[in-house]
């Protein structure tokens, strides 16, 4: 396998524009002859499916929820970045590009990131035209807010529901095409495998989750927009259904998996309350703009928050990072929270929590301002914890949130399997080792609206694809393998449902491959995961049949894949003997506890190739060169 990034040459600012006008086009009359499968209806998938259909391609779109509108993108709260410079505070495409490269700790491809920053402005135009009700100022123009880790206000938002509004925009565009008969929508369908014929991606095997029927879908290209795999940690801020099955199956069919260990832990989530906790809820990062984070100075201090005088509180972020204070990037904020809890200074049940306190802001700005800014977040907090955040400070703790890693793609967003394109959070993306707040929505929409529709044409115009139908041997073989896998799962007559194994896996991943990692811990985790896989095989119970709505079966299939993803994640973390961005190896830190990057040895994208079941995967390296932004030590002090 060779990693050909296909990055065009020339000055950074002109690459995309030039390249876009040079790549091949599909003749209008030929577009309807090409069938494209888009798996996923989140920001990336819905925007891509709608745009491709508009261009005239025949499109089929899949999602496992009952409606494309429910894709996990709906849950994004904070906002979306764009280099509009509406605030006149010195923002520019270059600055957004620079911030993203730096925020990602120099582990992303310069050309891709530049393109992303460039396209960002068009996304806002597009969304406004679709009727996305972004927040506005009294003059009627768009409002912005600032978001962690940067010094300009470039984040566009729609209350605390930006992801919802952007997704509804894309969903409506998609709906329009469905209504026109240009997109066939398969809701409640789960992709269970990728069909590869003569070395090219030619279709998928999906399961109709209502009838249980397996169906084969043949196409000229397949686009995966299936989101991230943070649910490998069991408890995360992701929706319960988020899974790695689509990308994992593609990985097993030859698509390289890049930087799996780059997973982001979000600092401001509501801490878990007990064993039956089924997911963690994110509190918008915007709270850090006005909130102060602290823990008691003394370990084991069990007084209520309001009983602890200021002198006995440790505002540890303000103390350690005088210039950024509570606004340090996510990875730093998360690790410091873990540190103070490890020191026994954590608050709340189990000592896993720190205070996020808006008392001072309330005194300074007045309660009504806080109500206006954060009222709905406070309500959400109250709903979940039963505590009134106007009276007692909120408790927060980091939680798995986002995965920078994903399937490796070239500049055209094509994976190592020709004809298999990967967009949105599912690809290894433009965020390097750490994503900045409000940049995932931007990337998903950039990929789906403005990049893929061009680059996929280039592929289709060139590829000489033989005619194929569902009777093709490759389709039949893949289908038989899926059938076999489902049968094995259904045959399980053990003691535990898939949840049990998922929870166990999550514990291992969180403890050993979470906010900080160590070589021995990772090795032990790999052993434990392998053992867990065996237990899973021996002791799983699914029940029911494959010919009906069977949620136990769906979950079991996803957990089976997570049990493999987890191992690769640990392996990648183990091989990367450096700390960078969200990947923090205890062994590699500066004396004051900051990440120590090793550019000499690790300035590359680690792309793993599947070599067969039970065999170790093979590592391929895509070297990263920085022509414009020179790697430096991140400093937020």
């Amino acid at each position, binding site marked *: 396998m060779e990693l050909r990034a296909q990055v065009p040459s020339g000055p950074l600012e002109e690459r995309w524009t030039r390249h876009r006008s040079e790549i091949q086009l599909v003749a209008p009359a030929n577009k309807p002859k090409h069938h494209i499968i888009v798996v996923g209806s989140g920001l990336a998938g819905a925007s891509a499916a709608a745009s491709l259909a508009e261009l005239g391609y025949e499109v089929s779109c899949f999602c496992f929820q009952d409606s494309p509108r429910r894709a996990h993108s709906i849950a994004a709260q904070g906002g979306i970045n764009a280099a509009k410079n509406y605030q006149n505070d010195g923002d520019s495409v270059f600055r957004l590009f620079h911030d993203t490269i730096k925020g990602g700790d120099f582990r992303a491809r310069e050309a891709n990131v530049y393109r992303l920053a460039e396209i960002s402005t068009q996304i806002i135009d597009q969304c406004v035209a*679709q*009727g996305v009700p972004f927040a506005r100022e009294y003059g009627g123009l768009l409002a912005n807010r600032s978001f962690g880790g940067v010094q300009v206000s470039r984040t566009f938002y729609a209350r605390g529901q930006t992801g919802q509004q952007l997704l509804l925009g894309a969903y409506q565009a998609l709906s329009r095409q469905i209504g026109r008969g240009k997109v066939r929508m398969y809701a409640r369908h789960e992709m269970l495998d990728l069909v590869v014929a003569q070395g090219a991606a030619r279709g998928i095997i999906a399961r109709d989750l209502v009838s249980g029927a397996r169906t084969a879908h043949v196409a000229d290209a397949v686009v995966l927009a299936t989101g991230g795999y943070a649910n490998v940690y069991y408890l995360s801020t992701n929706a319960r259904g988020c899974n790695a099955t689509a990308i994992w199956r593609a990985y097993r069919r030859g698509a390289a998996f890049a930087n799996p260990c780059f997973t982001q832990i979000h600092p401001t989530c509501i801490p878990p309350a007990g064993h039956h906790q089924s997911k963690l809820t994110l509190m918008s990062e915007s709270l850090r703009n006005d909130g102060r984070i602290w823990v008691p100075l003394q370990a084991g201090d069990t007084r209520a928050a309001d009983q602890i005088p200021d002198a006995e509180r440790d505002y540890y972020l303000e103390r350690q990072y005088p210039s950024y204070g509570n606004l340090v990037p996510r990875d730093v904020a998360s690790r410091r929270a873990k540190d103070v809890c490890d020191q026994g200074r954590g608050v709340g049940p189990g000592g896993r929590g720190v205070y996020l306190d808006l008392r001072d802001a309330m005194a300074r700005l007045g309660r009504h301002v806080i109500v206006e800014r954060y009222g709905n977040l406070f309500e959400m907090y109250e709903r*979940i914890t039963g505590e009134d955040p106007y009276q007692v400070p909120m408790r927060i703790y980091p939680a798995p949130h986002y995965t920078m890693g994903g399937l490796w793609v070239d500049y055209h967003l094509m994976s190592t399997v020709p004809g298999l394109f990967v967009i949105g959070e599912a690809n290894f993306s433009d965020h390097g080792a750490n994503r900045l707040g409000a940049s995932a929505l931007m990337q998903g929409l950039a990929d789906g609206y403005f990049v893929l529709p061009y680059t996929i044409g280039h592929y289709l115009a060139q590829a000489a694809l033989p005619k194929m139908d569902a009777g093709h041997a490759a389709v039949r073989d893949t289908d038989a393998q899926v059938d076999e896998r489902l049968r094995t799962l259904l045959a399980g007559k053990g003691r*535990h449902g898939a949840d049990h194994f998922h929870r166990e896996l999550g514990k291992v991943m969180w403890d050993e491959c979470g906010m900080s990692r160590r070589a021995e811990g990772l090795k032990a985790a790999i052993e434990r995961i392998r053992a867990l896989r065996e237990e899973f095989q021996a002791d799983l119970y699914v*029940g029911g049949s494959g010919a009906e709505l069977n949620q136990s079966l769906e979950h079991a299939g996803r957990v089976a894949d997570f049990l493999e993803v987890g191992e690769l994640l640990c392996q990648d973390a183990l091989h990367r003997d450096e700390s960078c961005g969200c990947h923090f190896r205890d062994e590699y830190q500066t004396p004051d506890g900051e990440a120590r990057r090793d550019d000499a040895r690790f300035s590359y994208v680690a792309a793993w190739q599947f070599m067969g079941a039970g065999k170790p995967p093979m590592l391929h390296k895509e070297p990263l060169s920085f022509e414009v932004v020179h790697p430096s030590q991140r400093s937020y002090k």
Partner: protein
Amino acid sequence: MSGVVLHVWRQAAPATPGRFERYQVEGVTAEMSFLEVLDLLNETLRARHEEPIAFDHDCREGICGACGMVINGRPHGPRRATTACQLHMRHFPPGVEIWVEPWRAKAFPVIKDLVVDRRAFDRIIQAGGFVSVRTGSAPEANAIPVRKHDADLAMDAAACIGCGACVAACPNASAMLFVGAKVAHLGLLPQGQPERYQRARQMVEMMEAEGFGACTNHGECMAACPKEISIDFIAALNRDYLRAAFGAYPSEGAGEPTEG
């Protein structure tokens, strides 16, 4: 808190008759969400090799609109502005008996247990719940200022999560709140003006073809709506629909999807 009694509607398939089944669930804590209680029950059922209860859910933070069931006669349960997934057990007295039913409407047929088919909502949006804008053809975002008040009101309407509780709660099983929210959202913004009246007509036609009932202004939908969407938007829909019928807007070609 510890034991609760659940009476859950069990129905194997759309055409088979359903019935309530009684379950005693132990080990429930005040911190658990209602769906976590169902998780817990399902885990026990699986351990007994019995069929777990099917229910829709995904985000579990009140935004995706996947969850939804009638809990003691109230869609999404007793708390205002709260989805089933965000409903916590501390709001129930210990030992409480809870009856759980699926949304009931002809347009939302039961698939299994508490899972219903809500694709009718998607088809309503497909009939006109959009602004026709080709990717890449949009003007500069700040070219058209929008009054903050209008933008805020549009956002109020746009907050709908498409859960269907409004239909479930409506004595007429009417979908007017859902449709009204979308028509108002787009109709309040300058970008939505060109297709405004046509949109209202097409969405209403699709809504009626799907078999939803007629609104007689009970207001139950608003009480059940987890996003507290106001029935003012139903009035707004009626207004636009009336103008579509009598105003100087093209009334031919109704029902055809817009081109362009």
